[in-house]
């Protein structure tokens, strides 16, 4: 029995926040069958509320002792917001275009590109999120029906739609709030890492269709692969909120410090951190500093004309090389 883990690295220094991934995922999976409000993939602007709004405040995950922590289920008014509908059918009849929900108050990308700080020293960056397909999934641990499993061949975490009884403890327990409830199916559903695509040699929609070319997909034990090298060899790719104890398998190259801030005279402050390191550490943990340092020094070397395997990898000359699915494309 092979017990491999398929993982993804997202390079936040290349993410342009275009949301092509979000929409690609939506048309692949969540534009139908009670999934309208779900974003198996979303891109949030950080610092910010994310999706579901303020998801980090909903609890879940494990405590230091390895026990599940309490968690809360987001709701329409707290977290998800409405999937708004509009009156397209009335336009031909001369009506104005209207949001049927009235004046909206919250949505999945509500604070896009807002961030924080004071002009001209504000900052924000994009954080795309999918299910982390954790090695220690809290959703799996919490399910009273034993209806969540990890696939042997790739570690993809799936809700068993046959056995799921709709009790939703998985939703409360997932600290990333990446499990959703489908009222039409009366089952929990979540990102499936596009395993049906992977089985045909096609990368997940969010990665395959990513125009920023930020996503690498491969097996963590594939030592020739970018995922292994970025995570283990160069240690520039870090998990999001490892502190939640679920051992996530989606990794991020954290954002570099950004353009310099300005002093009162409009002079750039050399070496200033537009994005505070402490904020990044709160997301990506204590190894953030070392990861950024490594990246910065490789870029410096590159400027002096030296080669860099790490940067060549992140540049990704041939897009198809970003995916090592252990399978030729069949379709």
């Amino acid at each position, binding site marked *: 029995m092979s017990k491999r883990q398929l993982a993804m690295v997202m390079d936040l220094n290349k993410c342009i926040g275009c949301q092509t991934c979000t929409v690609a995922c939506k048309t692949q999976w969540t534009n139908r069958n009670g999934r309208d409000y779900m974003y198996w993939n979303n891109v949030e602007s950080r610092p910010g509320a994310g999706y579901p709004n303020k998801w980090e405040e909903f609890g879940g995950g494990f405590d230091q002792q390895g026990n599940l922590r309490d968690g*809360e289920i987001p709701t329409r008014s707290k977290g998800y917001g409405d999937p708004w509908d509009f009156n397209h059918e009335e336009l031909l009849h001369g009506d104005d275009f209207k949001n049927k929900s009235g004046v909206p108050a919250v949505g999945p990308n509500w604070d896009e590109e807002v961030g924080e700080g004071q002009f001209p020293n504000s900052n924000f960056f994009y954080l795309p999120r999918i299910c982390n397909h954790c090695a220690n999934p809290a959703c799996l641990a919490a399910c009273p029906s034993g209806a969540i499993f990890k696939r042997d061949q790739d570690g993809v975490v799936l809700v068993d739609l046959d056995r799921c009884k709709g009790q939703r403890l998985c939703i409360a327990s997932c600290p990333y709030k990446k499990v959703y409830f489908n009222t039409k199916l009366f089952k929990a559903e979540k990102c499936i890492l596009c395993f049906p695509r992977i089985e045909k040699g096609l990368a997940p929609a969010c990665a395959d269709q990513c*125009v920023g070319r930020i996503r690498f997909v491969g097996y963590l034990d594939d030592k020739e692969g970018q995922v292994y090298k970025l995570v283990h060899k160069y240690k520039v790719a870090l998990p999001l909120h490892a502190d939640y104890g679920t051992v996530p398998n989606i990794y991020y190259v954290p954002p570099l410090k950004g353009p310099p801030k300005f002093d009162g005279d409009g002079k*750039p402050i050399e070496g200033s951190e537009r994005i505070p390191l402490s904020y990044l550490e709160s997301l990506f943990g204590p190894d953030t500093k070392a990861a950024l340092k490594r990246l910065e020094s490789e870029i410096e070397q590159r400027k002096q004309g030296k080669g860099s395997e790490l940067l060549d990898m992140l540049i990704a000359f041939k897009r198809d090389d970003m995916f090592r699915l252990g399978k030729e494309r069949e379709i």
Partner: protein
Amino acid sequence: MPVSFTRRDTLKGLLTLGVGSLATTLKARTLGDDVKIVEDPRYEYSNASYTEKFYRQEFSSSYGVKSEHGHAYHCVNCQGNCAWEVWVKDGKVTRENQSRSYPAINPKIPDFNPRGCNKGVQHSQTMYEEDRLLHPMKRIGKRGDGKWQRISWDDAITEVASNLYQTMRRVGPAGNYIHIGAGMITEGRAASFKRLGTLLGAVRPYIASYVGDMFPGVSLVYGEGNIGCTSDFFYQSNLNIFWGTNPNTTRIPDAHFIWEGKYNGAKTIVITPEYNSSCIHADLWIPIKPGSDAYLALSVMDEIVERKLYNPKFIKEFTDLPLLVRKDSNALLTLADIDPKNALFDDKLLEHFSELMEEEAEHHPVNPSEIFLALNKSNGKVTIMSGSRGMPVETLRLVDSGWKIDPDLDADLKLTLKDGKEVEVTTSFNLLKQQLTQFSAKRVEGITGVNPSLVKELAQDMIYSKVAMTTIGFSLGKYFNGMLTQRAISSLVALTGKMGDLGGLNTENEWSIEGLGTLSSFAGKYRHRFASGAVSEFMLGESMDDYQELFSDSDLERATGMDKDDYQQKVEALVAKAKGDQGVGEGKSYWEEVETFVMAADARFRRNKGSYKEAFLNRAKFFAYADFRVSDLAQYADILLPAKSHYEVWDIRVNPGYHRYANLAHPPKGLNQVGEAKSEWEMATLIAKKITQLAKEQYKKSGDKRDLHIADPTHSDTGFRELELVADLFTIKGELESDRDAVEMAVSNVKQFRPHNVKSMIKQGGHLQLNDKAGKSSPLGRDRPYNTFENNLYLHQPMETLTGRLTFYVDDPEWIKVGAHLPIAVPELRAEKFPLLLMTPHAKWSIHSTYKTSTTLQRLQRGVPYAMIGVGCASRAGVKDGEMIKLVNSIGSVEVMAKVTPNIPNTVVLMEHGWEPYMFKGGVGQNQIMADMLNLLELSDGWGHLKFGVNWDGNQHAYTTTVKIEKV
């Protein structure tokens, strides 16, 4: 348990659950409960196949069968031009996935896969939306009332054709306005209505100009506005500057090259008033005050000149800076001014050139007043410079067999002219130097907000980087002073000596594509009435009234030195000169007799300003509109023609040259027809046939030849529009009747497509790679990124300018009068009555207005029109994020949601453009509170290469309007 769904779903959920008051916080089960301890979660799970089958089935329902997939791009005047696969199942499009099969050109340069964006990736959802136009409709109520009668295609076409015909009879060809708008800039589909318009002699305005996306200031310096590189150039550049542009938002498919370039060692600088999505990855962001960009450019030029950072060799060879200028008149000194026997004049060289000129005279006549002079340091004599328009020696070489010129950049001398007058002459470089001292970094700091240390950094980076590319965006041309800004930045880049493989200026590269003309034209025999976009739309919209309403005398004085009425009179005088058939050649053409409008893909009510909508509706006696959806404009049409959308047609798209691939659109196999939609080619063919039929019938009845032959002495070589021929001419006797015919004809005609054909394009994933003939001013190298002007830099070919050189100096008397003979910066026009500048840049969430109404995309925004305001601005107005506010000025007000952000200055309101009026309360859109004015310099016409055409027209401006905020 209130888990969120649509209301109906939620209700269902609640009923099924039978609960409503459960606490939402779930207590975690702890050890001791019946918690299953997962030692290794990767255990063999016994019931995997149920779920796996479920999702596999879903996937295969979306994927269908590869052999049935179509290809497409989203040609709604998005410049991206990205190859997509269109997935289909049971005759219905399910979704789209990029082709991602563009061949790499070099293993050390990132490839172009995958292209696409958040808009294109959801067209499959939009094409089946409930605002889809399904049937031809005839208006039966008042315009805009939404009362329609469904009619047959034949009835609809008859209405359109007879209105076009009656107008030709009554008014002449100039009474018709036939146009495919900014919603469809492709070489294939858009040619349909162009062809029809050309055949009938109808008016067609220039799109780039009316949408305000022209680069006239770049044309001034470089001779053409669309210049620059393929996007992979950014990867191997040492410096990438993005000025007035936000590529992460508006060049989504190409942006990766920038950040891969950063990893490759390039320095990236963004110059914009706001901290936007591109700034976040930049090495340096320069927050500039809106509209002051020309001041910054000139201050960098001053730094370069003052510190002598420029390369004199480049300036001498490639710019007009060594040319001599008369101090008495500020005019360029020309050969016509000089007696060749003058002792100071190098008559030997003239003799030598004259021999060469005689050889060439047949195809390039000599014109002494377009031959310019410099002082040759190597012999101390005034000499003629080759390469200018009046000179058949077409080279910029300073040294060649027979001549050796070392132009003196600092020349200052007295000269006796042919008429005996003694004048002082100097170089344009000397004059530029003087001019620039007014714009030193210290002097302009208060205007630009840019610290002098940054001016220094920019100057050094632009000079010392081996390869430096400066990309400018459309936003700069949106200011009233935009042409001068574009010119100032172009001049700066020209001064740095970067061209060709060394970088330079990047707007939008255009490939040279030969053979597509046959689709839209008739070998020049019949011509359309090509109108200035800006003038045509401004006059049609009676926009002077809005100008009067919003601006004050002092606004105008600050921006132009004239008062409001004075400026208007001068504009009106220029506009009047170029009016109608008689005005052709006299400036910016436009025809005010237009009254019958047949248009497609053109949501003009959202774009045009102020009271345009009312003026247009008053003007339009008949107005037919083709689109695939009910846009705001569609609501007002007399006849609605349902068009096929991008996945249902054949089409071909090449330009702009962000990449070297031409994309093909062809529908998936077995695709179900959506309603009764037809392609624009099918519509145009039907209209052409019907016109011939109607004219013949009428002639048969009346015997009056004028019913068959419409007089057109100016735009038809035969002097007439022979309507009995229209059907055959349009369709080439049946060869060209459909979108597919058009594409097949294009693919087989275009030299740059060889050796490809439709079949090979489909096989490759819906595209082809252009061959090496596609480069216009550089070869298109097989394994390296493209940039313009290598032929100039290395082969010394003249530029397409009056002097053949990069143009700093314009000696048009009108320009001299206002001090614009040299690069200059002037304050922008804005109404000071209101405190906040309304900036409306290109959108991330729509392609102009297309997809603005997409449910998928609206859900990722705010679900209603919103505007960004600064934190300080919000607190001053007592406004919180998410509250509805009014943007108010003297023209009107518009209601939007406030989005409060720390990323913009407190002096602006930033709102993506493209929202359609019907999306706002009361149907009043953001552009309806805007006013603009035609710019006199942009209107000026006739000097050298500044002659009305695709490179020299004005822009409609947008960043002229100011507002105040009121709470709703």
